[in-house]
């Protein structure tokens, strides 16, 4: 009789299971997918939240609203939405410049607390207001948003921007010895594009970098994702300077930080392997010419790097993580110091050496 008893128990259990109902179902077909969100701050301190949502008809709907906090604003928006908002597929968080200057953590808190939120959403600072961008471009256009996603990936490959998503920036901006930089976007000729990076000190935006500077900044950080390319005018032995384009595809960085009574002294050594992509005068197979060009390019890059480091220091943005080293190797010094004041005064010496490995298939 054991069998019948088991069947009976089994059926009772099965009856018990559906009794809980489907309270925790998140049906894909009934969800409104949030695909991008933007934050602005109004003068009175209220948050203006903009959300681009994929509608049931596969159109992008844009909602904006104001509230005391992002969540307050979101609640108000959800009242107007035709369905359940789901933020697990958020791809983009844009923060208006004004909001970024006030501090980004209060805006991102709702993402960090929600277990279902997409932590791999790209995050960037936008010149002007984020809402304006959404209402102008994203409305009804799915492609625009997908293109932005691709643009982020692309610019990361070319070493313009760091990997910046909600998850990756969090441990860094909570670290006293390191700061983040975020992609800086602006409207250019009716399209949103990445024009550089926004520098942060802690949670507040304090400056910007141009495109070229961004590449160097990423190189100084020691990163090379795939390629990074530059074009400089290079002086020949005689005759006028002609432009030379090259790609960096290998980067070895050495960062040495010393701290003493005289303050902090950081040396950043880069060893780059490059491939020359364009140089009409050629003669590159000649040792002398190659050596001369290497020297010129290295000098140029070093002087540019200096400017980048100055900018970083001016913005008080310790992107290279000098403070981390100080914490690690000179803890007593760190205890005494006020890093926010000391970092801009630190001596930073970049030293870049180049090596031309390839110069195409011309001889």
């Amino acid at each position, binding site marked *: *009789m054991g069998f019948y008893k088991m069947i009976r128990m089994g059926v009772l259990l099965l009856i018990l299971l559906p009794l*809980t109902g489907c309270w925790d179902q998140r049906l894909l077909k009934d969800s409104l997918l949030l695909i991008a969100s933007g934050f602005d701050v109004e003068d009175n301190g209220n948050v203006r939240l903009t959300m681009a949502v994929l509608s*049931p008809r596969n159109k992008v709907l844009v909602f904006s609203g104001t509230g005391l906090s992002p969540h307050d604003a979101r609640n108000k928006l959800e009242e107007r939405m035709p369905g359940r908002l789901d933020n697990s597929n958020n791809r983009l968080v844009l923060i208006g410049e004004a909001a970024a200057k006030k501090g980004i953590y209060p805006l991102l808190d709702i993402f960090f607390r929600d277990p279902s939120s997409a932590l791999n959403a790209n995050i960037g600072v936008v010149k002007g207001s984020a809402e304006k961008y959404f209402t102008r471009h994203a409305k009804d256009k799915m492609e625009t948003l997908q293109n932005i996603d691709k643009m982020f990936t692309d610019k990361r490959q070319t070493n313009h921007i760091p990997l910046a998503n909600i998850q990756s920036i969090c441990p860094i901006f909570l670290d006293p010895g390191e700061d983040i930089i975020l992609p800086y976007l602006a409207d250019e000729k009716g399209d949103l594009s990445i024009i550089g990076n926004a520098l942060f000190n802690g949670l507040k935006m304090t400056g910007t970098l141009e495109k070229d500077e961004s590449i160097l900044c990423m190189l100084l950080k020691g990163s090379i994702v795939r390629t990074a390319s530059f074009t400089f005018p290079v002086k020949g032995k005689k005759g006028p300077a002609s432009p030379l384009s090259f790609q960096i595809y290998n980067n070895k960085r050495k960062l040495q930080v010393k701290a003493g009574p005289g303050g902090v002294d950081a040396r950043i050594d880069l060893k780059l392997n490059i491939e020359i992509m364009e140089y009409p005068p050629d003669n590159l197979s000649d040792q002398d010419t190659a050596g001369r060009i290497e020297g010129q390019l290295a000098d140029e890059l070093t002087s540019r790097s200096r400017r980048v480091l100055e900018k970083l220091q001016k913005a008080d943005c310790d992107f290279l993580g000098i403070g981390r080293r100080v914490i690690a190797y000179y803890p007593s010094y760190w205890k005494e110091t006020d890093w926010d004041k000391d970092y801009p005064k630190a001596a930073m010496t970049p030293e870049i050496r180049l090596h031309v490995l390839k110069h195409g298939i011309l001889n």
Partner: protein
Amino acid sequence: MLFFKAPPKEKPVPLAAGLPDEPVSPSVSETIQWLQKEFGHSSDLVVTRYKDAEKELALIYVDTLTDKQKIQHVLPHLNSPQVPLSWPPFSSPSAQACRTYPEAVSALLEGYAAIAREGMPELILIQADSAFQRDVKEPEGERVIKGAHEGLVERLAINVHLIRKRVAHPKLMIDHLSIHTENRTTIALLYIDGKADPDVIRQAKDRLKELAGEPLLSINRVEQTLEEFPYSPFPQIINTERPDRLTSNLMEGRIVLLMNGSPVGLIFPISFLSLYQSPDDYNNRWLVGTFFRMIRLFSFVTAITLPSLYIAVVSFHFEVIPNELLFPLKNSVQDIPFPPLVEAIIMELTIDLIREAGVRLPTSIGQTIAIVGGLVIGDAVVKAGLVSNITIIIVALTAIASFAVPSSDLSGSLRILRFPLMVGAAMFGFLGVVIGFLFILLEMCRLESFGVPYLSVLDSRLRQTFKKFIRLPGGGTDG
């Protein structure tokens, strides 16, 4: 029946036990009477009386079971009123004497003709069974691309012959079991003495005793009797119509059971992996064989979990879908009126229905049904917006995966095991799928086939496990 006590099982009384072990009477008339009574005066029990110079003789046979040609050559010996007959009247390898009625009855039912003589308390039996039989054709359900194209037929003697000619092994034992089923079915156990486990043979014989007195018409009944866990969805015995499969398993020390009237052989004890082996694995080069075996094993997981994973994803965890895929997917499920579970179940049942309909019909119409069912319904149902096209893809893949199993028993089980997992997925998402799959694994761990653990392929020695999954070049089979 669920909330009531099950009715007690009635054990049928073995019929053969009821027959008195009566010796054959020396009187011909009495013998004839006895047999006619036993056969209920059936009109195909033919009794012809003859006389030699001294005594009466009778030739008795069941008309519908015998071949007149074979009886023909006996007649001149019998019909000789001038000469007194010697006894036995002729010598032939197929002639034998029998001294009890039950034995005679069995022999008559097997197509023997019996000769009785006045004053002799025995019958001479002559083998005269008629040999109607099918061709030894490749079984429809278990085709292979390369390899032997023979299949079992409905006659035990021929099936044994097919195996014998492949295994010319003096130790190949053929054990005719004397189970007195109601319809006197002959069952034979085949094994190689010294390779097969005698314990298993003993166990099998013990279990088969249960069949005594029952009408035994299909080998499936035997299978259920032999299985230790008949309620389990997993078959613990392979049934196959391929002699090559039977012989390779015999050589590995397994036991084969054949039954007269059934073109199917049973193989036991087995492990789970055996169900996933096909003779094709060994007829091809090892690389090809291994690759396709891997695909087949992967199809096991696919066939069970694919629909439930789909349901779990679209109703609980769609964040696991990459964005490029999510938007088309969302588009596809957007306007479906049903919850994913209902949608998937509708489609699954439709596919099973089409399959079932196709099996019953002649080949030409069957193909039409497949096309009508597959293309038209599949396409129309999506166009009508009842089911999303992703579901169609998932269901089709699942169906194909479940047909990739070489064992039809298991493939049927897999098709049914999907449903509880789907319900679990609809209620608890991935958690439900995981728990459901764990239950299935637990069941597989629990099962034994005659003392051999079902999952014995998963050896604690990784090397051994690996060897069982990968068919390296060299002799022998595995699993």
